[in-house]
């Protein structure tokens, strides 16, 4: 088992498993967010549940944060090893001749997503922690919808979110199907996994972008 921890294949499996975990989380996040467009009351009640359920707050949330940290720390470790493995760089390297741009630039799409996460945590998570644990404000199951819509009032924030979703799409386009290959899963279902990856990596980020733009264009009038 000690060999497993040190091996290149194990590191890729860690990348794959944490990535797939984050894909599941994205799906759940999107399902809740889209209700803010369809039915604000549902959005409020689901958000309140997520914000105050002890299982979500004290078990699932730490697991999610650990998943994010493991994914990007391992991503950096692999990138550093991979750069070292080349040694001296080529004078001419035609990467576009044999591999798509998205697969060759996962570190850059990942870095943009990481930068976005910092902004996203500042926007929502830090605010939420301050509300509950610093200000110790009372529970208010009706506050989430207008807090969310207000966040998208500034144009700059909406644009940053949409740009991050474009990079998220590119990251998923390669990463989702690739994680199955890393875990040794390449068989007759692989073409279906690849097709599903393409649909998922367009639909989910496009949906997130739609939500951000929708709230920007439909502000709450006081």
């Amino acid at each position, binding site marked *: *088992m000690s*060999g*497993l921890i*040190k*091996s*290149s*294949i*194990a*590191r*890729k*499996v860690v990348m794959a498993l944490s990535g797939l975990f984050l894909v599941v989380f994205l799906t759940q996040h999107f399902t809740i967010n889209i209700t803010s467009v369809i039915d604000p009351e549902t959005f409020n009640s689901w958000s309140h549940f997520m914000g105050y359920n002890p299982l979500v707050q004290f078990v699932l949330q730490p697991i999610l944060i650990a998943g994010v940290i493991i994914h990007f720390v391992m991503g950096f470790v*692999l990138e550093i*090893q*991979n750069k*070292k*493995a*080349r*040694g*001296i*760089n*080529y*004078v*001419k*390297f*035609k*990467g576009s*001749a*044999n*591999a*798509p741009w998205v*697969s*060759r630039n*996962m570190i850059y799409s990942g870095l943009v997503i990481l930068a976005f996460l910092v902004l996203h945590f500042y926007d929502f998570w830090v605010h939420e922690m301050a509300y509950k644990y610093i200000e110790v404000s009372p529970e208010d199951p009706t506050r989430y919808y207008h807090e969310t819509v207000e966040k998208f009032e500034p144009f700059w924030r909406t644009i940053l979110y949409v740009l991050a979703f474009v990079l998220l799409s590119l990251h998923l386009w*390669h990463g989702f199907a*690739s994680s199955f*290959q*890393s*875990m*040794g*899963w*390449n068989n007759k279902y692989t073409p279906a996994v690849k097709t599903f990856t393409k649909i998922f990596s367009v639909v989910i980020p496009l949906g997130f972008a739609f939500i951000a733009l929708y709230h920007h264009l439909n502000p709450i009038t006081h």
Partner: protein
Amino acid sequence: MKLYLKIWRQKDASSPGKIVDYTLDGVEGDMSFLEMLDILNEELVSKGEEPVEFDHDCREGICGTCSLQINGEPHGPDRLVTTCQLHMRKFKDGDTIVIEPFRAKAFPVIKDLIVDRSSFERIQQAGGFISVNTSGNTVDANAIPINKHDADEAMDAATCIGCGACVAACKNASAMLFTSAKVSQFALLPQGRIEAVERVQNMVRQMDLEGFGNCTNTGACEVECPKGISLTNIARMNREYLSATLKG
């Protein structure tokens, strides 16, 4: 045709190298890439200059000795061919061709365009074999019935000539395609199953020790492989490795 060549020249493993420009006239489309380099070398020798050193042997595309990164791609712009089978008709009069050695920390340059690929030999030695009694009681391999699909897949994996184009093409200098082909050619056959657990563990350990990079599934190796070794071999090796390690 007239070509402008930019070739990596390096005196020895410890000296720094650099790109040197050469102009070569009279190149015919029917010449192989290595014949073009032969002509350049004849010119250099006649001028009293040091010829460009490069690896070659069978010149039939089957031995895996020739290498070269040509205009940013291992074995050049053609597909499913080695450098010795790449013909100059793939280039045009007046083209500039950048010729470099395969680059990887695990493939150190020996001289000019020649790299040391003994790291592949060490991976092979770590487990790329089956132990067979050859003292006179050897069992005929054909005595064991093997499903044709498995036999074909094992044969496809076994066509890997170990040239190193997969490593050269990979942005991470990963040797996963090579190692997985060598693991697969045995893993698919009953004779190879006996030592399967140790084989995959030992070969992957050696691959990591040599300093190759990690596979990020870009698929560049599969595209550039002169023998068309498939990425499914990498998935098979990952499966074999995970199951072997969890068992062991």
